[in-house]
């Protein structure tokens, strides 16, 4: 008992605010979190607010020596009424709307197969994850420039050998949209596989054993056990991959440059073209906030749609 009291006293002493013996705890805590706070303010909050502020000006980098004027929501109005932005917004939604479900379904399918595989398991796991290890530019060169070359590429060669017409993978506006999706699916399905495989392997075995005893088929086990239990993993995968897909730029920039016409240009590419390359900081900032709003809407929709199916707390 005496020892206990001594220990408590020692602890109390160590928490005391006696400047002569050291720094008060409350200040010391602030000192410790100061670097992180500065980093967050400098690298996150400041750029965020700076971009927002820039979107209310007429700032153009290449209009040197010209004053920067506050113009209220004028630039936002320009962005929202711009047919150029409308097209790139629809392109982005089309891309996410097609690529994400495809990657989800393919990822889930392959993950289930890999989870059940008994032969060559390790090899196939590594094999299916390989696209994720490639640089996107290398993927574009490999698939876009070599495989899908419209005149002498091997895929058209095979298709035409089989009697199909030549497919204009990159030159036809609609096919170019599809090609961008296919290239993205080729590369990023591996992410879904990774997530689902990890999820499947962490599921408890008891429900499955009970279901087998009850005579449930494989489809029923998937539908009523695996799928609900994978909910949190699926939600996480969709959000991460979906938000990433909204920002797609590398594949498009190197494969089609946004063309033909404006067929494949994404909002991020527009922001890059106008704000970074073109120097139109105000327009680019407002457009980047449009993208942010789109992504927030997407996140809200996904969370709303899965609120009963996936029980997670935030």
């Amino acid at each position, binding site marked *: 008992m005496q020892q206990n009291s001594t220990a408590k006293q020692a602890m109390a002493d160590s928490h005391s605010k006696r400047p002569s013996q050291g*720094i008060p705890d409350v200040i010391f805590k602030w000192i410790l979190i100061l670097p992180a706070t500065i980093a967050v303010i400098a690298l996150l909050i400041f750029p965020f607010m700076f971009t927002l502020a820039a979107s209310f000006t007429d700032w153009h980098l290449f209009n040197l020596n010209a004053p920067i004027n506050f113009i209220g929501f004028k630039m936002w109005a320009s962005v929202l009424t711009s047919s150029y932005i409308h097209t790139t917004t629809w392109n982005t939604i089309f891309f996410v709307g097609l690529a994400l479900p495809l990657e989800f379904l393919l990822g889930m399918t392959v993950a289930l197969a890999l989870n059940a595989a008994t032969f060559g398991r390790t090899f196939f796991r590594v094999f299916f994850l390989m696209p994720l290890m490639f640089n996107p530019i290398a993927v574009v060169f490999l698939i876009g420039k070599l495989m899908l070359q419209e005149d002498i590429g091997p895929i058209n060669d095979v298709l035409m050998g089989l009697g199909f017409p030549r497919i204009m993978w990159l030159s036809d506006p609609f096919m170019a949209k599809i090609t961008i999706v296919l290239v993205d699916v080729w590369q990023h399905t591996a992410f879904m596989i990774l997530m689902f495989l990890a999820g499947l392997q962490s599921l408890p075995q008891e429900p499955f054993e009970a279901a087998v005893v009850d005579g449930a088929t494989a489809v029923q086990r998937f539908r009523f056990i695996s799928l609900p239990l994978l909910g949190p993993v699926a939600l996480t995968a969709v959000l991460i991959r979906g938000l990433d897909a909204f920002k797609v730029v590398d594949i498009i920039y190197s494969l089609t440059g946004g063309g*033909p016409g*404006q067929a494949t240009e994404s909002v991020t590419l527009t922001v890059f073209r106008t704000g970074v390359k073109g120097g139109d900081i105000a327009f680019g900032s407002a457009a980047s906030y449009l993208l942010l709003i789109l992504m927030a809407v997407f996140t809200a929709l996904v969370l709303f749609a899965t609120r009963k199916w996936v029980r997670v707390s935030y």
Partner: protein
Amino acid sequence: MSARVSRRDFLRWSGSAFGVAMLAACQQPVAPVESGSAPPSRPFEGQTVSAAGMPWMWENTKPLYEEFLEETGMELNVATFQQQEITDKLMQAVATNTYFADLLAIPNNAAADIWGNDLALPVPEDLLNDPEMAWDDVLPVYREKVLAWNGVIYGMPHDGDTHHMMFLHSLMDDPDNQANFSGEYGYDLNPDRGPQTWQEHRDYAEFFTGWDWSGDGDPNYGFAHMMKRGDTAFWGFASRCTAYGKHPDDPGYFFDVETGAPRINSPAFVRGLTEWKDEMQFGPPGMISMGWGDVIEASQALRVAMNVGWDGVAMHREGSLAAGKSSYSVLPGSYEVYNAGSGQWENRSEINFAPSLAFGGWEISIAKGAENEDAAWALAKHFTNKEMGNTFAFQGFKNPIRISDIADIEPWIEIAGFTERSATTYLRALNETMTHPNLVLNLRMPGWTQYRDALELAVSKALAGEASPENSLNEAAEAWSAITDRLGGPEKQRDNYRTHLGLD
């Protein structure tokens, strides 16, 4: 005496130590005292010049400047970027007035932004009078216009770029082709100069499309042009329209020199785009996705009979099937030219040629505020003096910019690997282009990246069938006007355009 260190003391001491270290780091380094000064033969001993450029400028050319560095004692710190990257970085540095490097390789389009805003140093008088530089040997269009802004020379004469037409004379020489072509089109193939008008170019392209003239078992095509948006479509399209849109009596091409209004939706450009789109049937499938690199590959592989582009040397590189078969000519012209002043097409008795100084080359310039200015100018001189300039050109590290670069075919045969016929036509095409009175200069305007993007978008939309040539170019003209407004208005940009053309 307590051995404990309080947290405050710890922070105080560590902070003090950090402060002392920072102060020490901020001190100017003290040069070690040596018994004697650097020998005169190494005048830049201990000085480091930072340079920015593309990899091809610095990596393969090392043997051409290593000895210079050794002799002068100069250290060189090179930052290489790909073409688009260096342009972006340069422009951002310009816009934010940020130091980028001592020696800059400037894409000609960016000259208005960099030189026009006084962000680079004028070439010093002693270099302008330096016999080794031989400025009289620099082609006048470069010396007087391209390397200068507002009458002041800022660029050292490094790289000269023009668009010219390449055609396979081997095809035009063939008696069967000659007979068949004459029978079909009512005039003869021209093996010496190729098609002379865009109408003839269409005929040639049509004739050489859809059959295996290369003997590789696959059908071949008439031509390949750079059409890819975000790549080189801006220059491809600009060069396609010069014969229609550049009137010999009117200095303006992209803009009206009196009002600053864009001309890119004039009937001349609409006609050029309409024809370009129609002619795509005579090019490889997917030509809308072909950039300059793709055009070179298709030409080297004998998939196409003609192209328009920059690099005659490429056809003669190892592995090129077009080596010894290619000839060159100025861009095709037209008997009809649009007069923007009268708003009418004019029929002319002679062909209106309007060659294009597309891209205009990479100019070497020294940044204002360069840390080692003298050393940077010395390096610039080493790269661009007459003797070294010739060597660079003949070895294919840059395109000709000097009279002596294109005066003699021998080095092109011996060093660059041309045949006599290829070299003769190549140098003739370059000479006729760069000395032509109706030459269209590469566009140098503040904000040119946005102008370029807007025009490439319109061209690409029309070529992809997403809009008619007229509508898409009208959209582009509206976009150009909006860009002009964002950059200070039509009067300001008109003045810049006039300065670019050397009118004021």
